[in-house]
């Protein structure tokens, strides 16, 4: 039996399978992985039960659904930043692009005017007569195409941008700032009316999705369930991925990219792959978010939104997957609560949390929790 490793700095997430191996680590995992597992289970089934019992209203459920989407985006960032060390500050951009893909589909189903032009597009345009549907809108009338675009658009953008950036060995803060520049440029473009993406208003109103009325409470709950399921799925995907050799390669890139290169690997492809995955996850999150939110607009990708994702992951705990979920859900719930009770304090709370976590709690809540467990186990083991 091996002696006690120091759990304090052990950042690798052991796969769920190791839960069964037993030993002291088994005990720790029981609290730090089974517990989140139970929480996810509660999300799936507990919340609808609470709704049925009248403990919460459907507005809350819808809100929670949106937060689940944020959590999916956060997991993507955790893979990219927590594990691989790439601080991407443009996740909200991928999120919004995915949201627009679905939004355009929904708009094409929804109220149409004149020659098949969605009302959303019409509201912004000043030319009424003689306006035709822009060519690039037409394919979005098909659900299959729209869903494909949800994955393809953010994915391709991330792949191309990431590949060229990583190839020129742009890393660290340079990469982060460039991603911010990218998201700002994209925001500027999406705000333009003449690009026929509905300008600053975004795509609104959103009425029906594949025949389902989005204002129907049953549909809303169904959307929530889908989001929660997607979240569980993403968690499982992330846990599996980080347990593979690829997951270890991600950590290797973070720890010593040079060593990895000299071991014969090509970090460019590893980084591009994980960056693309993070983008696709964010895009899917955006697609699930849009029908629940009722609209999608360029403000969803302003510079600060991407930094918020980093806050969630940093607070929850980097490179732990569950930390991303905890941070995303926790901070957004806190935000929701505080803005209804003490609205003016929220910016200070957020700023304070962020600075505090970065300075004093770099491993986040889950990191601290694991440290406590390790300490407790150390104390227990001393004869």
């Amino acid at each position, binding site marked *: 039996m091996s002696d006690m490793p*120091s759990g304090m700095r*052990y950042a690798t997430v052991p796969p769920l399978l190791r839960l069964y191996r037993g030993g002291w680590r088994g005990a720790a995992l029981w609290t730090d992985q089974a517990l989140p597992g139970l929480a996810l289970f509660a999300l799936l089934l507990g919340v609808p039960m609470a709704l049925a019992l009248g403990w919460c209203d459907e507005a809350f459920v819808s809100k929670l659904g949106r937060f689940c989407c944020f959590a999916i985006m956060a997991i993507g960032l955790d893979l990219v930043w927590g594990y691989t060390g790439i601080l991407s500050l443009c996740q909200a951009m991928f999120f919004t692009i995915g949201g627009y893909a679905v939004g355009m589909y929904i708009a094409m189903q929804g109220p149409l005017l004149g020659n098949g032009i969605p009302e959303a597009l019409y509201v912004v345009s000043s030319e009424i007569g003689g306006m035709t549907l822009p060519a690039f809108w037409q394919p979005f009338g098909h659900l299959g195409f729209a869903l494909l675009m949800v994955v393809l658009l953010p994915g391709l953008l991330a792949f191309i941008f990431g590949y060229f950036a990583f190839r020129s060995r742009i890393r660290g803060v340079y990469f982060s700032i460039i991603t911010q520049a990218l998201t700002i440029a994209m925001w500027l473009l999406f705000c333009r009316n003449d690009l026929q993406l509905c300008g600053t208003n975004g795509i609104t109103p959103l009425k029906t999705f594949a025949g389902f009325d989005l204002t129907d409470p049953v549909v809303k709950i169904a959307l929530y369930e889908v989001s929660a399921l997607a979240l569980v799925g993403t968690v499982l995907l992330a846990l599996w991925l980080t347990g*593979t050799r690829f997951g*270890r*390669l991600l950590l290797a890139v973070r*720890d010593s990219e040079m060593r990895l290169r000299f*071991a*014969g690997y090509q970090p460019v492809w590893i980084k591009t792959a994980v960056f693309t995955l993070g983008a696709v996850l964010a895009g899917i999150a955006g697609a699930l978010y849009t029908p629940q939110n009722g609209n999608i607009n360029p403000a969803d990708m302003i510079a600060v939104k991407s930094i918020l994702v980093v806050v969630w992951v940093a607070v929850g705990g980097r490179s732990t997957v569950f930390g991303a979920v905890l941070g995303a859900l926790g901070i957004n719930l806190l935000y929701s609560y505080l803005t209804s009770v003490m609205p003016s304090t929220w910016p200070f709370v957020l700023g304070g949390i962020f600075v505090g976590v970065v300075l004093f709690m770099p491993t986040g809540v889950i990191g601290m929790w694991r440290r406590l467990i390790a300490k407790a186990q150390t104390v227990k083991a001393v004869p």
Partner: protein
Amino acid sequence: MSDITGGTRADFLQLTEITAVFDGFKALDVNYFGVDRGDLRVVIGPNGAGKTTLCDVISGKTKPTSGRVVIGEHDVTTWRDADISALGVGRKFQTPSVFDSLTVYENMELALPGRRRVWQNLFGSETAAQREQIDALLTRTHLIERRNHPALDLSHGQRQWLEISMLMVSGATLLLVDEPAAGLTDHETALTAELLSELKGDHTLIVIEHDMEFVRRLNSRVTVLCEGRVLSDGTLDHVSQDPKVMEAYLGRGKERT
């Protein structure tokens, strides 16, 4: 260009008329540097002599300003570092670089040859034979007790050994070892010298070192670099009695005590 004695042109590793110039500063200016297959060559010299640059040039981290690098039958002067390492060149850096977040075993496992493409790393795992190979190496380098511990927890010497073990498991045949004895205890230094000597024959090694005791233990041919040039070459005794070397190390007008 500097003078050099000995060495046949049929060497496994050949550096011919290599210069490396950075911003007007000539870091390397070597007429010929060759190492036989299966040999262990020690490279010593004062700081800034160009020893690390020599390794950079061999491994492809730096392109020489002029000259040729030949490994085996391949002219690798313009190759990328990834391709050169695929050829079988392994490098242990001055400051040991291992993957801190991974266990010792996982570090070794990543160094196994093959499975370098992204999709190859999603499924499947190492074979039993590979597992045994790793464990055998770990036992040989006294790391087996730390097998499942994160590499972060290793001592400095243990990190050096881990890095060397990783080179060994990767199937590298030309090993560039930069200061393996730095920061080691006497005991660890002795073990390291043993380890490196064992590797001779199957592997070709170039060892950069400062610790003369360690160099003596290695009992191999020594090349002295100074200011980018080869100053002297031969056994340790031969070079340590060479007046040029004494002047380089001890300065002018000093007598050897």
